[in-house]
């Protein structure tokens, strides 16, 4: 068994976060299926799954062009009405028939691609993470397609409160060695906002659950990336603040830059909120090194300190007696 997928994570392009009812409207990809809504431990909505049929070679590192046929599952999720994710994934059994079967056979196995013959696990996992050649299976395209579809929704005003860039996360889950539990082998930050995750999981792990874990990793990586960017190159200190227009009250640039983080991002950090119990320990590897939560807390502390510093003179002015 091999499970793979790709995730797009971005800020929902709206001035205000969507409430849970609007989230259900946005993610209602199907008239006859409910959007799953959850309020504990944070607000979260997840769309029904949609399927895309594929029949093409799998990407592979060694150039073996193994053809696979089946469906790729895709779904979208919205966290706290603020962060939108689309996630496409599939699972490959170790072997498959040598010829294509009637389509109905594949449709009753949603999210499964059957390889022609034997599956070269290692080569395909490499291929998926490195990205295939043109004409090879491209699940990123499917995640992109769903994101594009959602971004056209009339609920969105396309006035985001802060600047951010979408990220892509590709993942591949290889079978764990016999008797061993799940493990996170590598998390790579590549250029162009691309992240890759290589996992090992026991054979019977549900691929939808692996996708949930990777969605969670992608969400938190996006939060870190966005906050790091926001603080990177920001002019700190008490330099003379520019006046936006003559007569307007002074508003330090630092405050204007950091305020959206407080309004829209700082409450979103909640690792493992919906990750299955058996996969939750995989987070520990990232907490150990580089320390995702450690970095997040440091950034948050820095933002709060800046805001506190800027609050002091204002308070001081308030208590000053009028001349």
């Amino acid at each position: 068994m091999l499970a793979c997928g790709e995730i797009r994570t971005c800020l929902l392009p709206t001035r205000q976060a969507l409430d849970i009812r609007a989230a259900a409207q946005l993610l209602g990809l199907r008239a006859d299926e409910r959007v799953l809504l959850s309020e504990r431990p944070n607000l979260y909505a997840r769309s029904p799954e949609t399927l895309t049929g594929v029949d093409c070679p799998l990407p592979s590192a060694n150039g073996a062009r193994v053809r696979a046929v089946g469906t790729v599952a895709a779904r979208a999720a919205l966290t706290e009405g603020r962060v939108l994710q689309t996630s496409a994934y599939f699972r490959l059994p170790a072997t498959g028939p040598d010829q294509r079967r009637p389509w109905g056979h594949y449709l009753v196995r949603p999210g499964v691609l059957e390889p022609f013959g034997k599956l070269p696990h290692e080569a395909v996992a490499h291929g998926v993470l490195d990205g295939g050649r043109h004409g090879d299976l491209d699940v990123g395209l499917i995640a992109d397609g769903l994101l594009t579809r959602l971004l056209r929704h009339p609920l969105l005003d396309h006035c985001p409160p802060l600047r951010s860039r979408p990220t892509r996360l590709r993942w591949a889950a290889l079978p764990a060695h016999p008797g061993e539990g799940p493990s996170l082998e590598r998390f790579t930050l590549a250029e162009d906002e691309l992240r890759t995750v290589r996992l090992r999981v026991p054979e019977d792990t549900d691929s939808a659950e692996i996708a949930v874990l990777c969605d969670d990793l992608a969400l938190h990586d996006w939060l870190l990336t966005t906050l790091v960017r926001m603080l990177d190159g920001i002019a700190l200190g008490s330099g003379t603040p520019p006046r936006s227009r003559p007569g307007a009250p002074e508003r330090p640039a630092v405050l204007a830059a950091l305020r959206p983080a407080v309004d829209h991002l700082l409450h979103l950090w909640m690792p493992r909120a919906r990750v299955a119990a058996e996969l939750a320990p995989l987070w520990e590897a990232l907490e150990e090194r580089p320390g995702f939560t450690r970095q997040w807390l440091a950034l948050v502390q820095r933002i709060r300190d800046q805001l506190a510093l800027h609050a002091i003179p204002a308070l001081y002015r308030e208590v000053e007696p009028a001349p």
Partner: protein
Amino acid sequence: MTEAAFRETTAEPRTQSVPLSHLSLELGHLYMEDFEAGPHRLREHFTQVRPWVEAARAAAAARTGGRRPRISTCFLIDDYFTRFSSPRELVPLLLAEADRAGLRIDYLARESGCAVTGKVPVAQAVAARIVESPPPGSYGNRPPAAQTGWLANGERSPVARAPQAMKPATAWQPPQETAARRHSVFLDVELWNDDADGHRTWSCPFLAAVWQLARLGLLRHEGEPLFTPDAHTGQDFPDDWDELPSLVRLNARADPFAAYRTCSVLPNRFLPVEHAVRVVLDQTEVDTAALRQVAERSAREGVPVPDSVADRVSYVFYAGP
């Protein structure tokens, strides 16, 4: 793993199950012109159907290994494409003719119910579940659903472009059936069309595919079953087709409407329609939980259903008008 102490019902999928027979046997699927032709057309139909019904019952009994198979019979009346007469006049006539041939209709359905049942736009929901069979070379670049109102069992012939100056016209390319065995039988099915006001009319084969899914117990709306029968109480039928429920149970002791498999006995003019139904069923992704419920229950009873939904459907075509 221990079960979580905290649960949130809106965060979990839920799908209700439906009671299931072994076989849903369709005794006819008639259009208004068949009724217009008079009672003799109905009589002729049921006389032709009778021996095949016996055969279908015997085949179902053979599959259950001697146990009494649960079999329900049904009949579909078209009130979608044309309206004729009224249930009050027509239904008693239909039942009388079936009775004369020694047949009993357990459930009566209206074709309009396959388009919209109550307030649920069933046909629209099923259309949104179409996942087109990908021709070789599809790597994730195709839109997931039929947008055009047409669904094929393969790749269409490329559109011939007008030849440009200095360039020869491209030669004609044949269409190709994806699952062809050496030679193609290519079929392109019209699922719907829209009139000038944007009003959508579903095609007969598409509604017939919805009808098959209903009989297979695979239709759900937000997890709730669709096509649950209303019992017929009292003697008379209403004057207006719209007042007749989408699915009426005429026999209080009937086995459940939905079944593991279906068999339809139809005149052979339905052959192209039912070929189209297969093309639609073969590319429709049904509710996963409903699918699992049926598979589990049938396996427990020792009569496992075929994987593919289209393979649960069978027909008898008799020579007739």
